[in-house]
């Protein structure tokens, strides 16, 4: 072994976190021919210590500089410093260092992605709302369709973006568009479904999930699912995206039925949607409208088929798309082998992660004579409410500063825990939404709650009715989640509509 030498280098104003510094020191010290190595901030104390260890130090360095020094054979020192330079130019964020090693970092902009030669024609934009409209505009300029996951985009920006997109023949899905399935690719929150003849166009993410998942479970499949954003059917936006999607689907030979999902549109907007459906109808396709809460008969004579619920829309779509299995009736009677809620209890308490499920359940229960308060109607969310109460946990009140309950259902689960503990709770109604984007362990918290309340064993436990939105292809599969809930004593309905009907039946049959 030759005589020992020392080599060192400093990198001005270069920060690495402590773990990276320690790892680099250890890596250099382990090299053959190296007897001492250090990678530390160039403070006087550290430089003094390095000097004491026989490592050369720079005459001038700032405490904010990074210092790397080694002692050993000349070849080993040169190799160690070269390795250090390589490590410092790695993907942890080098500035100025160059090792000749190509590091391909993720694109920082849509334009950069396109410049790299990628041929994507759809941009999914999920950035803070303040910047979302600008990013969407850039994507349109680059000839890309847009799925705008972000919310907090102004109405004016939404109108302008959709007008701009329509002029270029490009779709603007959103803002606040959480669900889409484009050419078989799930975007945002979406379920795993087979390809088929039913297209879904909707202003409601969970509403679209319910329809697409049920279409799949009935043996059919989905050609496209196009989200419009919650405000698309408002008077100001005028169903711009829904109308554009209808025009596109009219030219899609793979689509035989189009299902429209929304709350009731403004009357002028409804007329516009009916007009936009004409080309598809003229081609021989069917159009089913699930405008939840729209009075029965409101679209008679338009050529559109009105569906009273999300489940009914899926059933009608599959029947119209035929040939295939004949769908069952949307709602089955409450199983008679089950008790009808906690003795002495009188109230229904519903806890939803999907806003549209809450909205649909409210309407269904109301139609069946069970009138509920809800935060969707300004009625609060206090579990001790003296009224029947349905709570949408996706509302701003619960999601500002927190993930959506489909991602983190813990707040909802705690509320269910509190509801079950109350002696006046007769029935608890809830939803579980599976699929791409959702929590991979969606009922772990609920099962713990149910076990604590001995739901499957105690005769005086409230009746819990659940609806699981998903398919057997989701991970976890719907079958698995249904089995887990059933084992713990939960009555699992086949649709949100059916779950609400069962809850109403349990209350009404017990005379509450």
């Amino acid at each position: 072994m030759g005589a020992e030498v020392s080599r060192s280098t400093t990198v001005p104003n270069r920060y690495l976190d402590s773990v990276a510094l320690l790892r680099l020191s250890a890596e250099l010290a382990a090299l053959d021919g190296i007897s001492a190595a250090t990678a530390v901030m160039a403070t006087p104390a550290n430089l003094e210590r390095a000097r004491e260890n026989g490592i050369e130090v720079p005459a001038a360095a700032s405490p904010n500089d990074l210092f790397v020094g080694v002692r050993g054979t000349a070849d080993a020192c040169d190799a160690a410093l070269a390795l250090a330079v390589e490590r410092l130019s790695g993907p942890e964020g080098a500035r100025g260092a160059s090792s000749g090693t190509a590091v391909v970092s993720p694109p920082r902009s849509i334009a950069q992605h396109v410049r790299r030669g990628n041929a994507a024609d759809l941009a999914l934009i999920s950035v803070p709302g303040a910047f979302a409209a600008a990013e969407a505009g850039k994507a349109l300029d680059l000839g890309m369709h847009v799925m705008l996951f972000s919310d907090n985009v102004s109405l004016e920006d939404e109108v302008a973006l959709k007008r701009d997109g329509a002029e270029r023949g490009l779709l603007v899905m959103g803002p606040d568009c959480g669900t889409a399935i484009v050419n078989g690719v799930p975007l945002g929150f979406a379920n795993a479904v087979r390809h088929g003849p039913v297209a879904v166009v909707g202003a409601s993410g969970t509403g679209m999930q319910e329809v697409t998942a049920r279409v799949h479970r009935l043996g059919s499949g989905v050609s496209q699912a196009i989200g419009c954003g919650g405000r698309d059917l408002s008077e100001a936006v005028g169903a711009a995206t829904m109308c554009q999607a209808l025009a596109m689907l009219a030219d899609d030979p793979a689509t035989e039925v189009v299902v429209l999902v929304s709350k009731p549109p403004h009357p002028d907007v409804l007329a516009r949607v009916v007009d936009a459906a004409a080309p598809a109808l003229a081609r021989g396709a069917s159009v089913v409208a699930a405008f939840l809460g729209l009075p029965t008969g409101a679209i008679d004579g338009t050529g559109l088929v009105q569906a009273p619920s999300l489940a009914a829309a899926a059933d009608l779509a599959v029947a119209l798309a035929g040939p295939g299995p004949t769908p069952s009736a949307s709602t089955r009677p409450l199983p008679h082998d089950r008790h009808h809620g906690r003795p002495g209890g009188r109230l229904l308490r519903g806890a939803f992660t999907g806003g549209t499920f809450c909205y649909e359940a409210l309407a269904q229960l109301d139609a069946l004579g069970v009138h509920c308060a809800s935060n969707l109607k300004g009625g609060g969310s206090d579990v001790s409410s003296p009224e029947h109460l349905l709570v949408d946990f996706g509302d701003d009140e619960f999601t500002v500063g927190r993930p959506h309950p489909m991602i983190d259902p813990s707040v909802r689960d705690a509320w269910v825990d509190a509801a079950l503990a109350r002696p006046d709770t007769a029935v608890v109604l809830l939803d579980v939404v599976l699929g791409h984007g959702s929590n991979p362990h969606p009922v772990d918290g609920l099962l713990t709650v149910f076990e604590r309340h001995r739901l499957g064993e105690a005769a005086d436990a409230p009746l819990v009715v659940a609806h699981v939105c998903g398919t057997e292809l989701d991970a976890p599969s719907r079958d698995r989640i249904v089995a887990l809930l059933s084992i713990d004593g939960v009555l699992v309905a086949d649709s949100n509509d059916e779950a609400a009907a069962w809850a109403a039946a349990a209350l009404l049959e017990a005379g509450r």
Partner: protein
Amino acid sequence: MTAAPVLPVGARADRGRSRGRHVPTADADGEVALVTTSTAYLSLRVSAAVRPVVAVHDGRGALPCGPATLVVDALPQLRPGDRVRVRDGLLVATAPGVGPVATVDVGGTPLWAPPPRPPIEPARASALATALLGGGSAALAGAHQRLAARLGAVLGALRSRDGAALDEAVARTVGFGPGLTPSGDDALAGLLLTAANLAGAEALAAHLAAAVWSRLDATTALAAQLLALACEGEADEAVDDVLRSCAAGSVADVARAAAGLLALGATSGADTLYGIVSGLLLADAPARAVA
């Protein structure tokens, strides 16, 4: 002439979960200095004399809150070199060639303001030191190996009330050791905070603070800030938890808080805890002036 707004008119920024009082809400500029998996460090300039390093932390793991920490729900996609501006309560980070990549409504973010810490009774100090040492033997053994000689010199100078020796020992400890906040600084911060909270050791803490203050230019900007805040009694939440539990908690509380602190960084948690234990050992130091 009116300056251009930071955000488009009508746009809304996301609020953070908490901010320390040293996180500026107006008139600061700087850049992203370092990004780890859970924290982005922003090097800011408010004035020639006020240059805070703000930790933007995602709230997971140790150190959720601190006097110069901004806790957010999800760490924005920042990279070293991104420019940062704070105006009118809004913090905006801009990537070169890309445009704005993150915005936080710091003005609307709740202020983290822990109440004053109660004093630690000297009679409990010995038992507390034993409890703390029992909780993290491997990590504390590493800290002992790194720091025993230098921190021992600091303690010796404090005990003997030797001002010159104290200055020399502090000079050898500030900026010493691995890490972005070098080990010596973490330990000194723990020692300073504990001494200031230990009934009867306040005068020693003041002398130590004076010695440390004069050496702040001998360490990294982030560590200098840590030490300056410690001189004023301010600490991040993980350290604050340990000190509070020492003052008023059970042994189990102390062990739980210590475990939380040990989870901090590669060496920082253990080094800080080593400083805290050292500070508790000052409980039996005679009360007389430093020469």
